């Protein structure tokens, strides 16, 4: 379990907050794919990011508190796209490593870090995904 140093990432390029409800995952997938396409990701990498965003969101939704907002922040970090997704939850716990969602997520992202915040009144779960930005050779 590691904690990502958000200070090193600076201001996000894009930040999206939606109510923590599965109905909004398709919107987050579409936004992630659009951003990846704008960054000249290959088609395969766009699909991988779309899937990773969905799995991360689904994992967070399992623990979201009442009336919580799901927040996705996209950062450009040199050759990498870093995605931080977080949700407030009263009792954060790490995702089950044997679950399908975690298997897919860790297979598609080059790294996944889990952050648990247990401070009173501000507890939450976050996932930080890192994707390499490989230029599409055809472009």
């Amino acid at each position, binding site marked *: 379990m590691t904690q990502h140093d958000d200070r090193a990432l600076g201001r996000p390029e894009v930040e999206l907050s939606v109510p923590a409800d599965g109905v909004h995952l398709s919107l987050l997938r579409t936004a992630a794919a659009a951003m990846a396409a704008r960054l000249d990701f290959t088609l395969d990498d766009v699909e991988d990011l779309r899937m990773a965003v969905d799995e991360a969101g689904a994992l967070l939704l399992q623990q979201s508190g009442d009336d919580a907002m799901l927040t996705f922040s996209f950062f450009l970090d040199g050759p990498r796209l870093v995605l931080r997704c977080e949700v407030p939850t009263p009792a954060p716990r790490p995702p089950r490593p044997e679950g399908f*969602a975690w298997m897919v997520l860790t*297979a598609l992202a080059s790294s996944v870090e889990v952050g648990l915040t247990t401070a009173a009144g501000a507890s939450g779960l976050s996932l930080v995904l890192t994707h390499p930005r490989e230029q599409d050779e055809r472009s």
Partner: protein
Amino acid sequence: MDLSLNARSQGEFEVIEVAGEIDVYTAPRLREALVDLVAKGRHQLVIDVERVEFLDSTGLGVLVGGLKRVRSHNGSLDIVCTQDRLLKIFRITGLTKVFGIFDTVDAAVSSH
């Protein structure tokens, strides 16, 4: 994009044609359809996902749940899929060794 389901009989098999996106929001509808079919005594299932545009781990969980249900009645649940981006998810999770995955409905049916 929503999820659409169409079930039809082909001999002793029930073929469920799925189109659209299967995710945490839409997967419960697929689960309900599979539970209903099993409750009606249909235990030989073929699920055609050729028109599915997105499938995540929640959808995979529903398919695995369906497989467990039909196997408890000595039935079968096969998948029809040729899309690489969907097959990739089956491979990542090791489910290519769990499901029969075929190119066509006829191939799935004739494998029994």
